[in-house]
C-alpha cells in the first residue's frame, strides 16, 4: 500500500507541474505565517520536561488554483524542525466537491482542520492536548498520506453542510511518538491504514459557527522499542469518535470538542486494550477592536490508560487563561498562563507569542 501511494504522490507532483501552465484562468498565492514563542515552566520536577524554550517559526503556505485544479503546499520551519507538513493536489469534481491527494491533515481534528499551522489564526497560543501534532505529544494521527474528499452543500436558503472523508497511510509509533509518513522520503517509512470522516453543520453557509461529528479508524504500527519492551512490531488499532462545537459571535467565541478514543494492540506481548476520553472547552471574549481574552479547560477521563502511558508527557488536565492584542493589521501579541498535569508531573506554564502574516 505504501509503495502504491508513494507512486501516486509522485504522479501528483508531476501532474501539478504539468497542469500549471495549461489554463489561462489561474491564480496563486504565497503567504508566510511567522511566530516567535517563549515558554517558561515552573514547578517541573521531571528532568525530561523542558524548563523553557524559545521557538521562532516560519510557516510557508503556497496555493495555486485554476478552474479545475488546486494545489496547496505548507512547509514548516523552526530552529529544530523543518517538515513538509502538507502537499496536496486537488481536483474539483464539482464546484462544491474537491478530491485531494497528497500529504494531508485528516479531518478528525476540528482544531487542526480550522487553523492548521497558522499561529496567527489560532485563538490561543497553545492548542488542546488532544489536538496536538504527532511530534508534540500527540496521541491521535493527524498527518496522513492519501486521499481526501471535501464537500459542501446548501441546506435550505442559507445554511450549509460540510463533509470530509479521508483514507491513507497512518503514522507509525516509534521512540515515544507518532511518526507520520514523510512525503519527501517515502522509502524511509511505511504505515498502515488511516481513515477519518467529519460532518459539520453551518447555520450560516459562509459563517464560522458550526457543530458536528467526527470519527476515525487507524492502524498504528508500533516499531520495536526498548523503552516499550517490544522486540518486534505490533499494531495498535485506534478508533475515535467525537463531537465539536464552534460558535463565533460579535463579542464571544466558543470552541469545544470531545473525543472517545479506543485502543487495542494486536500481535504484542504487552496487551493494550483500553480507552480514554478527552475534551476541552475554550471561550473567548473580545474587548474592543484590538484586545481579547480567552480561557480553556481540558480534561481527560481514564488518563491512566495504557495507551496514554506510551506518551507520558501528554497533558491530561489543563486550566489556561490568556490575553491577545492585535496591535497592527496581521500582527498580534499574546500571553497565556496555565496549570498542567502530565502522568509523571504537574507544572505551571507562561507563554508569550508574537505572530504575524506576510504579506
Amino acid at each position, binding site marked *: 500500500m505504501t509503495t502504491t501511494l508513494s507512486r501516486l504522490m509522485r504522479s501528483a507532483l508531476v501532474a501539478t507541474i504539468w497542469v500549471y501552465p495549461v489554463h489561462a484562468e489561474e491564480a496563486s498565492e504565497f503567504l508566510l505565517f511567522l511566530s516567535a514563542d517563549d515558554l517558561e515552566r515552573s514547578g517541573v520536577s521531571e528532568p525530561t520536561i523542558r524548563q523553557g524554550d524559545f521557538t521562532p517559526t516560519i510557516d510557508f*503556505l503556497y496555493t495555486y488554483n485554476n478552474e479545475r485544479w*488546486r494545489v496547496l503546499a505548507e512547509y514548516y520551519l523552526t530552529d529544530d524542525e523543518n517538515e513538509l507538513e502538507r502537499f496536496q493536489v486537488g481536483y474539483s469534481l464539482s*464546484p462544491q466537491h474537491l478530491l485531494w491527494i497528497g500529504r494531508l491533515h485528516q479531518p478528525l481534528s476540528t482544531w487542526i482542520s480550522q487553523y492548521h499551522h497558522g499561529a496567527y489564526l489560532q485563538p490561543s497560543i497553545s492548542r488542546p492536548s488532544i489536538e496536538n501534532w504527532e511530534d508534540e505529544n500527540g496521541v491521535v494521527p493527524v498527518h496522513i498520506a492519501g486521499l481526501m474528499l471535501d464537500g459542501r452543500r446548501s441546506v435550505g436558503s442559507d445554511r450549509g453542510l460540510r463533509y470530509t472523508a479521508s483514507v491513507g497511510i497512518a503514522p507509525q509509533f516509534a521512540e515515544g511518538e507518532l511518526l507520520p509518513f514523510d512525503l519527501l522520503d517515502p522509502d524511509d517509512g511505511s504505515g498502515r491504514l488511516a481513515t477519518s470522516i467529519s460532518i459539520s453543520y453551518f447555520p450560516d453557509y459562509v459563517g464560522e459557527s458550526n457543530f458536528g461529528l467526527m470519527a476515525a479508524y487507524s492502524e498504528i504500527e508500533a516499531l520495536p522499542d526498548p523503552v516499550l519492551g517490544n522486540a518486534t512490531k505490533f499494531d495498535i488499532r485506534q478508533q475515535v469518535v467525537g463531537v465539536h462545537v464552534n460558535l463565533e459571535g460579535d463579542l464571544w467565541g466558543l470552541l469545544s470538542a470531545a473525543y472517545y478514543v479506543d485502543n487495542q494492540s494486536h500481535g504484542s506481548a504487552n496487551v493494550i486494550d483500553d480507552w480514554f476520553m478527552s475534551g476541552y472547552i475554550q471561550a473567548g471574549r473580545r474587548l474592543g477592536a484590538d484586545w481579547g481574552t480567552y480561557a480553556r479547560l481540558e480534561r481527560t477521563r481514564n488518563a491512566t490508560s495504557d495507551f496514554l502511558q506510551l506518551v507520558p508527557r501528554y497533558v491530561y488536565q489543563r486550566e489556561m487563561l490568556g490575553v491577545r492584542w492585535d496591535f497592527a493589521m496581521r500582527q498580534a501579541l499574546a500571553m497565556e498562563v496555565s496549570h498542567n498535569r502530565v502522568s509523571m508531573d504537574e507544572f505551571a506554564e507562561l507563554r508569550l507569542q508574537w505572530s504575524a502574516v506576510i504579506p
Partner: protein
Amino acid sequence: MKYRVAIAMLLTSLSAPAPVCADHSLVLIANAESPIDSLLPLELRKVYLGFNVVDGSGQLIRAISNTSNARLWEIFLQDVMGMSARSYDRRLLSLTMQSGRVRPDSFDDLDQILTRIANDRHAIAFVWEEDIKDKSDFKIVRVLWRR
C-alpha cells in the same frame, strides 16, 4: 461690468443652500456580455470569501475587490459582508489556510478594475454607480447600497 458679474456669481453661489446629498449608489458590475445576470446576497458573500459559485455558463465567478476608496470599501464590508476589515481579512486567510482558496484579487486603482471586468466575462466588482455611467462595457448586476 466684468467684476460686477463675478461678484454677483460669487454671492449667488455663497447664498445658495448647501447641496443636498445626491443619490449615491454602490453597485455590483459585470462585463456587459457576462452570463452573470443576478447574484443573491449569499452567493455574493460566497464569491467574496473564495467559495466556488458558477455563472449561467457553468464557469466559476471571479471576485475583484475595489479598495480605491475608503468609504466604498467600508460600505462593502459592513453592508455586504457584514464584518469588519480585520474579520474579513482573517476569514480569507483562514479559508486559504484551510483549503487552498486563493483570495479575491484586490485593486486600489479603478481603471485597473474596469479593465479587468471589460476583459473577463466571468468577473464581478463593486464600484460607485457614477463610475460606470455612460460606459457600455459594463452592466449592473445588483445595487448593493444606496443613499
